[in-house]
């Protein structure tokens, strides 16, 4: 999913670069606080591993194959802050040393693969772990599901960027269905592979998986009951939002038809800012689909964040043993 130059217009790319710098800056500060100096070579080796893991491909449809992104895997193995830094290094090295991904699109690529993918995976992972049994197998399953969904969310991030500043001329709804659809399939592959990788690592060296550091403690914590029902619902909501909402939207072509019938679309077409303005996407009828999908995903992410926060807070309220 490395966006080349020219896909997204200059102002959006610049804004994304600024946002990415801020996000990774925060990641550096947080990771820096949590890192012992021995972690620096480990992070470098992890980055090299992610780079190599991205070579793993798997079939997604007749004649097409998908590649691992690795953001979710990195998040579970390294924790979200270091994962975002490591993924940013991977993306940056790919752009500058291997000419993979446009230099102007670096901010966008970092946002999608180094911020959205690891963070959405981490939040989903923690949310799932909160009501799954505290075993290594459950952790691996949670990691797989989280990574799979994070791929779709990252793809939706790309679609959002396209909606804001895409230069292609294709309707956002088409891009949404194409990217969303393909990445749903890629997400399944990435989820399965991530789950197996995490399971393998947990079996050999459980101490190195940051996302499962709680499993090393054998003091037999009780399963958390608070919020379990809420989380099951939230989990289901997320699946619906991420995978089904792009397709469940009221017919985007219908909206465009209506816009055409009313003469609105032609006006938008001949606007001088067509394709150049960062808000070009909003002028078309297809933005209903995007807005819903993005809102749905954001809503669920926020809900998850809240759910996670609820879990943590309720832990503190419990009487300490």
């Amino acid at each position, binding site marked *: *999913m490395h966006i080349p130059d*020219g896909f997204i217009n200059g102002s959006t790319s610049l804004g994304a670069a600024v946002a990415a710098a801020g996000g990774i800056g925060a990641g550096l500060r947080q990771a820096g606080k949590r890192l012992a100096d021995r972690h*620096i070579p480990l992070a470098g080796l992890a980055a090299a591993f992610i*780079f190599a893991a991205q070579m793993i491909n798997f079939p997604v449809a007749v004649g097409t194959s998908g590649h691992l992104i690795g953001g979710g895997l990195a998040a579970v193995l390294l924790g979200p802050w270091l994962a975002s830094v490591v993924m940013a290094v991977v993306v940056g090295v790919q752009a500058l040393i291997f000419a993979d991904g446009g230099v102007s699109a670096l901010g966008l690529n970092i946002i999608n693969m180094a911020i959205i993918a690891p963070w959405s995976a981490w939040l989903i992972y923690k949310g799932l772990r909160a009501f799954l049994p505290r075993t290594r197998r459950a952790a691996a399953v949670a990691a797989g599901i989280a990574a799979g969904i994070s791929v779709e969310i990252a793809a939706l991030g790309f679609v959002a960027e396209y909606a804001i500043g895409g230069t292609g001329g294709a309707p956002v709804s088409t891009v949404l269905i194409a990217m969303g659809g393909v990445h749903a399939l890629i997400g399944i592959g990435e989820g399965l592979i*991530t789950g197996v990788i995490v399971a*393998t690592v947990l079996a050999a060296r459980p101490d190195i998986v940051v996302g499962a550091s709680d499993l090393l403690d054998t003091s037999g914590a009780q399963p958390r009951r608070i919020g379990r029902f809420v989380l099951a619902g939230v989990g289901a909501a997320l699946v619906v939002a991420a995978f089904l909402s792009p397709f469940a939207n009221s017919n985007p072509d219908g909206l465009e038809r209506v816009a055409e019938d009313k003469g609105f679309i032609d006006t938008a077409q001949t606007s001088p800012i067509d*394709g150049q303005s960062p808000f070009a996407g909003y002028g078309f009828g*297809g933005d209903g689909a995007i807005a819903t999908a993005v809102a749905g995903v954001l809503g669920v992410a926020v809900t998850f964040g809240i759910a996670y926060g609820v879990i943590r807070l309720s832990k503190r309220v419990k009487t300490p043993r």
Partner: protein
Amino acid sequence: MSGFHTHALYRHEHSVLHDLPSQVKIVALVLFVGAVVATPRETFWAFGVDGALLIGAMLLARIPLGFVARRLVFEIPFVLFAVLMPFIGTGERTPVLGVLLSVAGLWGAWTILVKGTLGLGASVLMAATTEVPDILEGLERLRLPKLITAIAGFMVRYIDVITGELRRMRVAMTARGYDPSWIGQAGPIATSAGSLFVRSYERGERVHRAMLSRGYTGAMPVFERATTSKRQWIVGMGVPAFAWLSTIVAWVIR
């Protein structure tokens, strides 16, 4: 939308570009790509200027145009996307060779192809004239955060080691009948990848021990570097300066 590339692009030659300090080239690359992306899509002549500047730089660097062209060919997904645009684009359509194509889509295809190609060509040129350790050093000199450049340094050092191990794993699996055309078979390669991560992590621990053994106490040692002269900066900024000139003129007169 990526091709996936694992080969460093450096080509050893003696040229003005090869001799420029790496941080100058990195800045020049960013500025040049910025100029290309900022150019309004209707001003074909401005892209012509950019293309001429790029080709001129390639000739100066003694990088064969075929080398760059071959690398461009690998960007299949985005070329495909661009080619589809006129067919799936919205709105007003115009007949081209008997087929009704979307105007917005045609503009979109043009934008993606010309800007993507120029951007990729510039990236390839920079990588082809700058050795990988120098690129890393250039990023250090540009005051990128130390944690980032340190991680990047280790990453780059061990990419070949780890991708080599992954390739050997795949060869061994293929020899035992592994067929990656079925997703169910992703299991064995995922298990191997898991072992590879554990081995990579353990190597990271050994590297840290080696660092400690040579006196590392938490901060990477600072190596003195040669200073870059004003003249080198002026030479390096030549191409991007003219690219921006054409971009600004294009804005003004369109």
